[in-house]
């Protein structure tokens, strides 16, 4: 155990450390209100996730709009997705239907691994879900958009699991969205306009 940081000592803060790394230190500060005259220092403010929206998937298309721009990153998780017919589930950002989405995908289809890198698309392909609410046939996905408010091209990372008509599919997608606008809405939709969601819930989180 060692003691660190004389400058902080002058501010009545003592750091006790295991080794030399700052991350291995704890701080104690003077506090006349306690019996010992000491207390644990208040930790620096850290990050966290704030749930911004919980939305059931119904109809053909669901848009979560007016997403706050007060966070660093956007994280979206959707679960228990099933559809009225076998179909794909896609996502658009800011209702942008231009050819502004580019990604590559690794898919494990049962035990077969394949790659896919389409030309730019007008959406982010997310998962293939089946017309069944059986627990092992529903679709689940997560979508992360780092630094989603910045005036730069956006990257996105997506993992998904769904069971298509013939096989279980695990997907990993990395891509970019050709827009410098802050992302304020996310649309989750069934690929064929006649398909409707039978179940599913989307959670949108802001990450500090």
């Amino acid at each position, binding site marked *: 155990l060692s003691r660190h940081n004389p400058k902080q000592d002058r501010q009545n803060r003592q750091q006790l450390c295991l080794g030399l790394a700052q991350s291995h230190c704890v701080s104690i500060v003077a506090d006349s209100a306690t019996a010992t005259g000491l207390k644990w220092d208040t930790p620096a403010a850290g990050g966290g996730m704030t749930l911004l929206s919980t*939305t059931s998937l119904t*109809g*053909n*298309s669901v848009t979560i709009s*007016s997403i706050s721009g007060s966070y660093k990153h956007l994280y979206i998780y959707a679960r228990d997705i099933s559809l009225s017919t076998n179909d794909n589930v896609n996502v658009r950002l800011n209702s942008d239907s231009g050819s502004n989405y580019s990604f590559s995908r690794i898919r494990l289809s049962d035990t077969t691994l394949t790659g896919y890198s389409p030309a730019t698309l*007008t959406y982010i392909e997310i998962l293939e879900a089946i017309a069944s609410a059986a627990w092992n046939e529903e679709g689940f996905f997560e979508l992360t958009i780092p630094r989603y408010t910045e005036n730069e091209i956006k990257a996105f990372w997506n993992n998904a699991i769904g069971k298509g008509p013939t096989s279980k599919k695990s997907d990993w997608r990395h891509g970019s969205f050709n827009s410098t606008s802050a992302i304020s809405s996310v649309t989750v939709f069934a*690929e*064929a*306009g006649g398909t409707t969601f039978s179940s599913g819930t989307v959670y949108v989180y802001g990450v500090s």
Partner: protein
Amino acid sequence: MEYHKMSKPQVKIVNAETGEEVTRDANAEELAQMEIDAINVANRKAEAATKEAQRQAILDRLGITSEEAKILLGA
């Protein structure tokens, strides 16, 4: 597929700030986009079907099954 001749797809919009939810029929612009999407889907499926037919034709010419092809390729 002409969606305006069928029961119209439903669109739900949720305001993340207020929690307000609106569910309505898809409007003309959204229906037009769905038709474009449907055409793109049909094109992609046709392309995949063509590739599958080409693959099967090669297998038939070689007189082997897809499982045997996998063994040949070490897949």
